[in-house]
């Protein structure tokens, strides 16, 4: 377990020292969301209706920008090979990197989303559910995205490839995440959607670190 926390600490520190990389993702999130009113018009009712969808889609696209640096630097400088041959199980190493990624990308996205919610005139009663759904959803996105990043490590044009691999797989997150917020706005309880998101998170916690480990071993060969 020591190795796990050491790795989380190391990756978080590296991300914080290259703060501009993390900020870039957030800035993209804000700019992309701010483009929608220009595209569809500033009418408050329309924006309020579209706000949950816009928030989730732009958060997803912003997260896509962050995955190429998840394993790439370690792969380039040889750290990855050391991690692969280390005594710690590789799935745990992968999970540590995923946790660090969530702390430095998912969490900032989570913090930024209410601000964008205000800009898009999101229904005030739905912020609690939005944050809860976002917390679960960004964790799933980190897990699935890490799998995509590990699979496409060392390939040509890995950035575009990554989106092609990951985006279809996270469609359920988008559906239930936006659905939870929509449900609250419509006056229903969002329990079902949140429970399904939680279930998806559990399933991803089982599948993705394992898949990452297999893919990383493949990449380090």
């Amino acid at each position, binding site marked *: 377990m020591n190795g796990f926390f050491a790795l989380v600490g190391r990756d978080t520190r590296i991300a914080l020292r290259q703060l501009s990389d993390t900020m870039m993702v957030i800035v993209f999130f804000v700019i992309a969301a701010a483009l929608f009113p220009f595209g569809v018009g500033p009418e408050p009712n329309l924006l309020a209706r579209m706000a949950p969808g816009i928030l989730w889609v732009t958060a997803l696209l912003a997260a896509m920008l962050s995955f190429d640096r998840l394993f790439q630097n370690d792969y380039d400088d040889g750290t990855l090979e050391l991690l692969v041959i280390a005594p710690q199980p590789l799935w745990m190493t992968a999970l540590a990197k995923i946790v660090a990624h969530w702390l430095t990308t998912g969490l900032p996205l989570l913090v930024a989303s209410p601000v964008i919610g205000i800009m898009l005139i999101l229904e005030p009663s739905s912020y609690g559910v939005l944050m809860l759904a976002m917390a679960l959803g960004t964790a799933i996105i980190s897990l699935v995205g890490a799998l995509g990043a590990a*699979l496409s490590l060392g390939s040509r044009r890995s950035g575009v490839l990554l989106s092609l691999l990951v985006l*279809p797989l996270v469609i359920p997150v988008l559906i239930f995440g936006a659905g939870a917020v929509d449900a609250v706005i419509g006056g229903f309880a969002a329990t079902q959607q949140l429970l399904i998101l939680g279930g998806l998170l559990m399933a991803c916690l089982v599948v993705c670190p394992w898949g990452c480990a297999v*893919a990383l071993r493949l990449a380090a060969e």
Partner: protein
Amino acid sequence: MLHRFANPTRFLRLANAVLPWATSLTVILIGAGLYFAFGASPADYQQGETVRIMYVHVPSAWMAMFAYAFIAVASAVGLIWKHPVAHVCALAAAPIGACFTVICLTTGSLWGKPMWGTWWVWDARLTSVLVLFFLYLGFIALANAFDDAARGEKASAILALVGAVNLPIIKFSVDWWNTLHQPASVTKIGMPAVHSSMLIPLLLMAVGFTMLFVVLVIVRARAELADRRINALRSARIHAETAQSGA
């Protein structure tokens, strides 16, 4: 049993024996199916002649799913038993499955225009097939993204397995999303019990398409194995030549 065909030569012997039979079955079945579909089956009392699109549309939808299942099973076999021919078969099947998906989507939208009055609706089934198409694209792109072919086939095999786990979840969530966002504004035409005059050509086409899939997979796998053989021979010759000139 599986291990017998890990040897490409043995696999090729079987494939070459199967190929003529599968080819002739494909020609006969699809030929007969098309004859029944366009000539001998009645037009639908409601849909008119457009019902004939179904004879291509439904089998290709089945094949789109069957091909993905085939890829997932082949990938699992390839990963678990390190079976080289299984990977070759999975890679050979991917573009074929993607083509069936495109055929399914295209014929569906051709049928949708006169029937529903629109080329495309975000119906649960259409959306799931579209996502399936994206999964095929991801699989093909990942398999071809590496300079080292072995790396590509293993990475894409892992992706195929994850995709196969995810596919029912996507299907379920799209169904959910559809009922949530779109209260039945698009009336799906309720399939009445299919009459045998339509069922026979449909089944003929379905089996014919399956045979076509077998033929295409064999042809593509054979080409891929030949390609690898050529590469191996070429690099062996280069090694021999450099060794000679060095001495």
